[in-house]
């Protein structure tokens, strides 16, 4: 499993892996927002937390369709399925690799992008906390969606349609934590709920993903 994680990280960093694409997309979304709604700092600072969360969530989608599709095309998935690794383990490692290569850079960059949207000072810490607590769920759900669409040509769009509704609870509570933090309110139950969603997702999704992969391998 460590070998698989190491390979996926290596593939992501090498040319053609799409590493940094999500980050660039996130940056572009954040830069475009002031053009769309106007440069007024007080308006921007009110929507900053929500826009940052939405941008990070959409950026997370970008590399999902390659998660299993490449391994499926080149036959690696068949051999992995007959390897002495449980498919559940493969699914978990894939989700972890996606989080490390796509979501973690977004979490790290989010405070810098927050400056562009004049996020209020108390919001930076809570933005990072909410993203750290929420993005693992995005990766786990996305891995499930990637497994669902693995055999399909042009499955990327369908993948977004399947995954985005499943992202709604995470977005609601994640953005709520960041917004309350930015406005200096008490965080309240939003953070425990967000963490709960993430924990539940992490516990269940590898099994759902593995079941769907088995289905896909039947061809």
């Amino acid at each position, binding site marked *: 499993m*460590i*070998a*698989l994680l*190491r*390979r996926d990280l*290596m*593939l992501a960093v*090498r*040319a*053609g*892996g799409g590493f940094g694409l999500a980050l660039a997309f996130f940056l572009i979304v954040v830069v475009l927002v002031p053009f769309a709604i106007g440069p007024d700092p007080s308006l921007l600072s009110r929507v900053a937390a929500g826009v940052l969360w939405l941008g990070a969530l959409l950026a997370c989608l970008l590399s999902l369709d390659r998660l299993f599709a490449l391994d499926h*095309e*080149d*036959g*690696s998935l*068949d*051999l*992995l*399925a*007959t*390897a*002495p*690794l449980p498919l559940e383990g493969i699914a978990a490692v894939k989700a972890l690799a996606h989080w490390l290569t796509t979501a973690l850079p977004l979490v790290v960059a989010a405070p810098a992008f927050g400056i562009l949207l004049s996020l209020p000072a108390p919001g930076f810490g809570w933005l990072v906390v909410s993203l750290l607590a929420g993005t693992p769920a995005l990766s786990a759900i996305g891995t499930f969606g990637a497994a669902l669409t693995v055999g399909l040509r042009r499955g990327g769009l369908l993948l977004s349609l399947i995954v985005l509704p499943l992202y709604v609870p995470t977005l609601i509570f994640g953005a709520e934590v960041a917004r309350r933090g930015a406005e200096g309110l008490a965080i309240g139950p939003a953070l425990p709920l967000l963490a709960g969603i993430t924990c539940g997702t992490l516990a269940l999704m590898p099994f759902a993903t593995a079941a769907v992969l088995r289905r896909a*391998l*039947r*061809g």
Partner: protein
Amino acid sequence: MLGASDLVVGRGGVALLEGLSLAVGTGDLLAVRGPNGAGKTTLLRTLAGLQPALSGSVDVAPDTLAYASHADGIKPSLTVRENLIFWADVFAAPDGIAPAVAAFDLEPLLERLAGRLSAGQKRRLGLARLMVTGRPLWLMDEPTVSLDSSAVAALAALLQAHLAGGGAAIIATHLDLGIEGQVLDVTPHRAQGRTAPRGFDEAFA
């Protein structure tokens, strides 16, 4: 090593081949022949446990076989060495990659990116990948595709060595590799009346 009795295999719930019984022991080579679309790939995938048999049973220990599809399972942005080490790690191969590298003469290519290899070299790497799994039973789907005649001869020699070393192989191929072995022609086993059940939709099977 592998046995199957009264096997019915199919795709999407529709039987393709039925009444198959086969036994492969140590040192055996089984060549699966048949026209395109007869179900050779489906049979191999079923034997590999990648899809369930419609009926009948396959009797094989799951840690004895390695399956190679048409594709080589090679990552173009990794070097030859990295590709092989990955599979050796996944399969916890006791000997590492050295024997496979030697067998397929990959030593001079080790630091090359796999994406820069020629088709024949890629195939050699793909076969080396099969070897580093350390599994005794190879299931190979059309291993001679895109190989020139000298590479086919090399593959045959390698297979012979594998069989002599206590391995076994089941190969779907149109070419005669010139190795003594059983031949399973699937043509007489093709399922009759291949009509889909009413209301059957392949997408939801």
